[in-house]
């Protein structure tokens, strides 16, 4: 790169910021790991009141999960477009990813409201508490991802467009986005299907 200080570095061969980002993601695993463990511990216990199985709608959640998974595809398409320096397409796919993420979030908000009206509230029982904190924590991650994608889309409006070697760039946000998707696959399985 242009203004390269020849000061030697990166003995691992992985770009420094990407390495830092991977380490960040590895701690995210522990955040979700702790939450999922707590969920599984409480799942097997007796608790009074309404259960998730009484209120949930598997087809609905399956569809919104599908939407989230598709957003990973559009994310990859954005990345590919940027690799060939097709700014127009990159922006389109970025926006598509953000929109799909937003649809998933909207689905989650709808679902939460629905559950709430059916009497499955945050403090109904230990199961509902864990459910809301766990899926809500994931929802917060999706929200942050959508904000990042929109910010990136906004930056892409500039004259210079986006580039793969600059800034908190597309590649990191893509890593983050895929991570959040993978976590949802686990959550959907553990919380809804098992």
């Amino acid at each position, binding site marked *: 790169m242009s203004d390269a*200080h020849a*000061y*030697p570095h990166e003995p691992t061969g*992985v770009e420094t910021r990407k390495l*830092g980002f991977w380490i960040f993601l590895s*701690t995210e695993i522990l955040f979700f790991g702790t939450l999922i463990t707590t969920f599984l511990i*409480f799942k097997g216990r007796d608790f009074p009141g309404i259960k998730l199985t009484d209120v949930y709608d598997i087809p609905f959640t399956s569809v919104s999960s599908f939407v989230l998974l598709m957003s990973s595809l559009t994310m990859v398409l954005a990345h590919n477009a940027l690799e060939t320096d097709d700014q127009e397409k990159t922006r389109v796919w970025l926006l598509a990813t953000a929109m799909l993420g937003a649809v998933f979030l909207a689905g989650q908000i709808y679902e939460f409201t629905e559950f709430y009206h059916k009497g499955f509230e945050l*403090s109904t029982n*230990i199961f509902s508490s864990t459910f809301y904190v766990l899926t809500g924590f994931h929802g917060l991650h999706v929200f942050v991802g959508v904000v990042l994608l929109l910010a990136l889309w906004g930056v892409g409006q500039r004259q210079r467009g986006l580039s793969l070697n600059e800034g908190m760039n597309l590649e990191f946000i893509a890593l983050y986005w895929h991570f959040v998707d993978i976590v949802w696959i686990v959550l959907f399985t553990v919380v809804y299907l098992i």
Partner: protein
Amino acid sequence: MTKIIEPKKQRNIFSRPSSETGVWSWITTVDHKRIGIMYGYAAFFFLLVGGLEALLLRIQLSQPDNNFLSAAEYNAMFTMHGTTMIFLAIMPISAAFFNYLLPLQIGARDVAFPRLNALSFWIFVAGGLFLYSTFLFGTAGAPEGGYLDEEVSRLASAPNGGWFGYQPNAGLRYSPGTAMDYWAIGLQILGIASLVSAFNFITTILNMRTKGMRLMRMPVFTWMTFAVSFLLAFSLPIIAIALFFVTFDRQFGTTFFLTEGGGDPVLWQHLFWLFGHPEVYILILPAFGIVSEVLPTFSRKPLFGYPAIVFAGFGIAFIGFGVWAHHMFASAISPVAQAGFGLSTMIIAVPTGVKIFNWLGTIWGGKLTLNTPMLFALGFIGMFVIGGLSGVTHSVVPADTQQTDTYYIVAHFHYVLFGGALFGIFSGLYFWFPKVWGRMYNETMGKIHFWLMLIGFNVTFGPMHWLGLQGQVRRTWVYAEETNLGFWNLIVTIGAFILAVAILVFMANWIYSRRKGEKAPFDPWDARTIEWSIPSPTPVWNFSKAPEIKSLDDFWHQKYGEDEDGRAVRREGTDELLLKLEEEGLNPDEEIHLPSPSYFPLILAFGLPFLGYAVIYKSIPLALIGVILLLIGGFGWGTEPLEEEFETSEETPDAKESSTYE
């Protein structure tokens, strides 16, 4: 290719030290050395506060049936003493060492992410202030039928559920009021600071090493920083989630840890100690690293068994995740779990023992220089062995259940955390004093400090062993005269005041030597690692030229060869080499670009306490202030261009070419 994030405001550093001074240059700094120094002072301030709290506790316990503090005040004081010492004193002082030394030891200009580094520091400051603001705004109400019938003083309006915050005692029913919320959210904020610094240090060690600095050539202190960073990165998320649960329980009516709602108080203990035990190693491993630098230097021998020490460090870090339930032998865990955790506790003593024997091997037959850092390092070994041995006794479950919650435990962990961690830290403070300030500390005062501290320490914590075995209970504000515990408690209190005097001597020495100390010679200790191959105090650019490392203890091998019997012989021309190094270190041939200051980390960091207050007081305006600060900080940070174009200045007309380094 460099990935140092460089902000908008430019500042080019030319071939002479920058004269930038003043408060703002410190507040906006992203220089790892300045951040390290600020970490050190902030942490020392909290160390004094925590020490003051300990003195209040000791005055209360100096005689039976005392009423110097009320029960409520006593609870607040021991909670804040523990929380302060662990999260606001020892951890950040270690962070000060990491910040200052890590780039120097691996031959780098700065850490991998200088602005993130500033962010860690400011989040730590914000978290500390948030936690302590409980004395101004917090309330500790009376539990139903509880002890609090008198009016609650400000002193008692601090968190009072212990640094471990056991549930349900720290829950809303038994700890009403907002004080424990300050505790939970304060720790959450401080955790973010440590997490961010952990990413930063891991990346720095992996990716910022200079040419030839292979992993197995890194100084042991760097290795221990590496281990601690992994411990932080993998243990803090656990406590973060557990603290989320606590905050939900207290604020939003969930029952994660409350049996009446189907929750599980023992789950809190598991989550807490799953973090809490690695935390113990987070506190002690930096001291291991420091001592492993000091002992070889003043024994004039290489560190005995370098790979063994490194692997033992990682062994401790790894096994450290598998011993947490030995804190819970008195809770309802199964006999199988008790046996298992008892065993793993015994096993973790093995790598620790390996280290101790390696240190002994290092000083064995060496030419010892008994100056202050060396005395503290030797004191560290002695005190840590005592604390380590009483630690192993806790792996014997039947004995441990007798000792649980007695002063025997208090004695044990003060021997490892004070006699261990803090002695190591003092050793490091004296050892690197010339490096940081370019002046020598006063040796006589240093020795007085050491002896006062060693005596005061043992007088304070030694008798606690037998007080504990006689059955004196922790966290209890009075004891009856008939228990005959009065005599030794008085001795302990006297010891605590000797420690206070020792700290005063240290401060006097520090203040005096900072201004009036002798000018430090280049390489004052005839040291081994490359941070001593540059001038003191360290120039802003650290290394004027990227060093190339050819062996472990590279600087030593530049100065010394071996004769036929393997004895170290000073090479000819070493004096000239040192003069040359000093000359070169002060006058780099080329223009050096350093990351420029930024105030966005500060803004971002101070958004967090507002979010904390917003949760406690359910206030939308406060939340908005917090979010706005976060947005300004984040947006400003994100829009600072990364590949800044350096303007060619008049002094160096061809700066474009010379900006390429090497």
